[in-house]
């Protein structure tokens, strides 16, 4: 029957291509949101933006590539590629970052789809698409625009690498192997992510955890971790060698020293660097001059970067020497006040978990501030501009778009729900257990940020997708557990003699509505 055959085909196509439709819907939703900001808002700038932009600009204009000791190369290379492909326009860079942001929504869906189910992926992906904090983060000339999608892709690849096929799940024992090529790929991606932001380096521990969560044995775990590690090292090693050759220090985390100084001198003023009354911190103690500078800067409420610049100029230090000194000063005060440090780190970690409301009003004038402070060298200054009249007129529209939803609106319930979701994922088991991977990544990232850097609000951005996934999973997995227990309870009850076929059916099986809902939630 041609008519009904065609109609049936039209109806069946969405079911057969549900994932494609889901990804398409989320991508369109994310792009639609980003369209609200890309032409209306000026490019946002942080003080660190120049440190990423200038090496890229110099590379494109044939003046070499020198990110210095503090920076890692991936983001400047991304900027250079944008400049080369799309021209000297900062808007092109943030537009590309917004496109990557839309990809993040799709990747969030896929992570949810593979672990818990389509509904979780769809709802979490929608939250990522609508997330105003991510919109703002992608509009900054900062690493978040690249780090966030890279991290999502890395986690997805790792999850796919350790996922068992349905046939493997049904068999006893450790049959089959994790996908080695995907593990190496995940390692490479993790290396790329770490070369975008060094805070991702501790995430290397996810590989063995992933293999264990995936139900693989010790042998597979070791081999798989080695494969992952090989990919990771393959990217990080050359950069370490380059740093050793250029700066005499092989560290790939040159920024950590300054970050730790900010943590102990700016975000937390309870640490004592210099005190004349205490011999271990007074004039006769080691590095007295440096400690005195930091203590005075702390009193002046200077930020970490400003403190580091003051140290460098007053003590005439090179970049590696400064990084080393920053690290030593920070570690020194931490080791003297370890309990205070741990307590502060815990508080800051929880603060990061709750996120902070991002007001566009603060971000709006950042590019103009860079113009007025004459921070950019002449060769690149022509790219800066104040917000135009048209942009200022439409600022309200941008604010409205970024205020549709932000994770901070649901604090503290969102992080609490995500904890519940991860717990239930562990209890339920199966593929859902792999949701712990992004959950652990969230915890590691936020803890590392709090421990090393302080509660910098934008450090929360990369974890937004995974908190959304875990929180939505709490609802779905709770329903599944309850439904499973009801089913188990009804199966263990002795069956009465059926008076009719209908009575037998209704007593022993969940209602069709419930089973249908259960299927859609599964």
């Amino acid at each position, binding site marked *: *029957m*041609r*008519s*009904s055959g*065609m109609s049936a085909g*039209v109806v069946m196509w969405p079911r057969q291509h549900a994932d494609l439709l889901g990804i398409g819907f989320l991508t369109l939703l994310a792009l639609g949101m980003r*369209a*609200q900001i*890309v*032409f*209306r808002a000026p490019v946002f700038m942080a003080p660190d933006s120049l440190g990423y932009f200038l090496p890229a600009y110099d590379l494109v204009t044939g003046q070499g590539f020198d990110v210095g000791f503090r920076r890692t190369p991936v983001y400047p290379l991304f900027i250079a590629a944008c400049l080369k*492909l*799309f*021209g*000297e*326009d900062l*808007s*092109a860079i943030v*537009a590309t970052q917004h496109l990557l942001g839309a990809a993040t929504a799709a990747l969030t869906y896929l992570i949810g789809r593979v672990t818990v189910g389509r509904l979780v992926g769809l709802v979490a992906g929608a939250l990522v698409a609508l997330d105003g904090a991510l919109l703002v983060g992608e509009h900054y000339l900062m690493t978040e625009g690249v780090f966030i999608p890279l991290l999502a892709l890395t986690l997805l690849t790792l999850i796919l690498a350790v996922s068992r096929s349905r046939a493997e799940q049904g068999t006893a024992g450790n049959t089959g192997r994790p996908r080695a090529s995907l593990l190496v790929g995940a390692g490479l991606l993790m290396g790329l992510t770490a070369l975008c932001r060094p805070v991702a380096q501790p995430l290397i521990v996810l590989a063995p955890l992933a293999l264990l969560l995936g139900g693989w044995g010790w042998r597979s775990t070791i081999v798989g971790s080695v494969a992952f590690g090989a990919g990771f090292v393959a990217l990080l090693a050359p950069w370490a060698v380059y740093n050793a050759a250029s700066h005499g220090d092989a560290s790939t985390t040159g920024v950590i020293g300054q970050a730790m100084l900010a943590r102990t001198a700016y975000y937390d003023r309870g640490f004592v660097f210099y005190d004349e009354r205490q011999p271990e911190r007074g004039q006769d103690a080691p590095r007295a001059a440096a400690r005195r500078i930091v203590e005075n800067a702390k009193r002046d409420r200077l930020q970490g970067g400003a403190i580091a610049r003051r140290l460098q100029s007053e003590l005439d230090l090179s970049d590696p020497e400064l990084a080393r000194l920053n690290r030593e000063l920070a570690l020194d005060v931490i080791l003297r006040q370890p309990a205070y440090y741990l307590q502060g780190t815990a508080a800051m970690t929880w603060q990061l978990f709750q996120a902070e409301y991002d007001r566009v009003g603060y971000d709006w004038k950042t590019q103009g501030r860079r113009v007025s402070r004459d921070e950019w060298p002449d060769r690149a200054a*022509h*790219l800066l501009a104040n917000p*135009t*009249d*048209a*942009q200022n*007129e*439409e600022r309200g*529209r941008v604010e409205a778009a970024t205020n549709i939803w932000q994770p901070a609106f649901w604090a503290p319930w969102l992080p609490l729900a995500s904890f519940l979701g991860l717990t239930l994922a562990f209890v339920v088991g199966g593929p859902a257990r792999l949701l712990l991977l992004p959950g652990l990544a969230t915890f590691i990232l936020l803890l590392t940020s709090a421990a090393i850097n302080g509660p910098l609000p934008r450090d929360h951005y990369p974890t937004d997708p995974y908190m959304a996934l875990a929180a939505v999973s709490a609802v779905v997995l709770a329903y599944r557990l309850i439904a499973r227990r009801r089913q188990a309870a009804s199966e263990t009850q002795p069956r009465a003699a059926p008076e009719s076929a209908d009575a037998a059916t209704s007593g022993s099986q969940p209602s069709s509505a419930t089973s249908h809902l259960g299927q859609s939630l599964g």
Partner: protein
Amino acid sequence: MRLRTIPVLPALLAFASLARLAVAFRAPTFLEGDSQSYLLPAWDLLNGNGFNPEIRRAPLYPLFISGVFGWLGQDLDAVSFAQHLLGLATVAATYLAARRLFGTLAAVLAGLAVAISGPLLIYERYLMSEAVFTCALSVSLLSLLYALCRREGDRFRAEDGSRSWLGAAAFALAGATLALAALTRPIAQALVALALAAILLHVPRWRRALSSAAFLLLGVAVVMGPWSLRMLSEHGDPSTSGGLGRSLIARSVKYAPEDFVDWKWLSETYDDRDDVEARARMLLYSKRRTIRSSRSVRGYQDAVIQELRVSPAQADQLMRSAALEAIGRKPLEYLRDSIVFSGQLLIGSEISPRSEWKQRQDKSWEEQWPDQLDPLVEPVSFAQQHDRPIAETILGMFQPTTFSFVLLPLATLGAFLVGTPSVGRLALLPMGYVLLLIGLSAFLDGPAIRYRVPLEPALAVLAAGGVAAILRRLRLPKGVGRHLASTVEPLPRRAS
């Protein structure tokens, strides 16, 4: 691997996207004097001042601009960006249309040609209706082809006698897309007649042909009806644009040879009369040299409205009458010149990004346009100036008119000598689009080269079809031939 098994369309769109992204931030939005006639009604609509485009302007492009401003922000670059997205849709529609008619290889060739076509890229950056019109034309061609190609046995009834709604919907959609094209540029109204002719010629049984035509007209009416009713209530004329008079003046005075209008006869006939028609003709006589030397007929139209104190609709009627009179006095010359103009349009000429850039940069648009539009026109930035050579290279890298001596014969081949049974005469449809619109442009306006730009996709489809026709007839080695056969042959139509 066969060409069909590669995700060709996504790859093609990715390639087209790269070309567009490469210029999106490097080149400014190009402007014409006529751009403000689209921009102002859009700005008014967005800012609560109603929607009142000039009588000669169809509504869709100002509505498009208004929609872009509302969604992306009041930025001319946002309009260019949105037009680039429509350009991607044009690439996709061209690919699908060529695949339907001639097979995958032809589709790839046609899609590539459209993806990097310099004139199309340039006009996607223009604040003029070409980008929207090109997309609407391409989509209407595609939808009409699909509606006609679905024909296999019983179109609207299944074996059990129940109606197939998809067939009706296909024709209604084709009608709706034609109407969208007509609401972008009124000349596309003629394509409705072409579509009806195609239905009557292609659908074998007259009852089914009539019902197909009825659904097509329904689609047209649903989309065009509201605007036609508004035009009727406001101007007493339901046609979607009242600019025919101005176009005919351009045709008969600006573009025609200087001696086309018998000025001596005109001045002697109307000099002593005092009626409005005579005064309009004498005004035309006094401004004949200005009209020939200026870019448009706007000066004459404004003079008619102001000096004769008539409405824009009345002014257009007066201009139409004067032009038709001149044409009526020299019909053979008019026909001859129109055929020459048609040939000029078909052959085309290069559209240089350099001249468009210069116009954008050097003209002081703020002085010429209403004050409320001034904030929208930002100067060409230093970075754009710096990247101008790269932008011009990309915008000018493929000029189809350079190869007209090859492309036009190939297009003719594609239209007339395809010969595959499953496609049959449908390959004539894109040729019908080209000839009808070029002919009407030549007869009713003149050989303005931008009138050819929206027809480049149709020409690309036909030329690619010509390549496919040649390859089908060549004696190729077995492996190559088998591979090409799988890519050259059109897709089989759906089984009944």
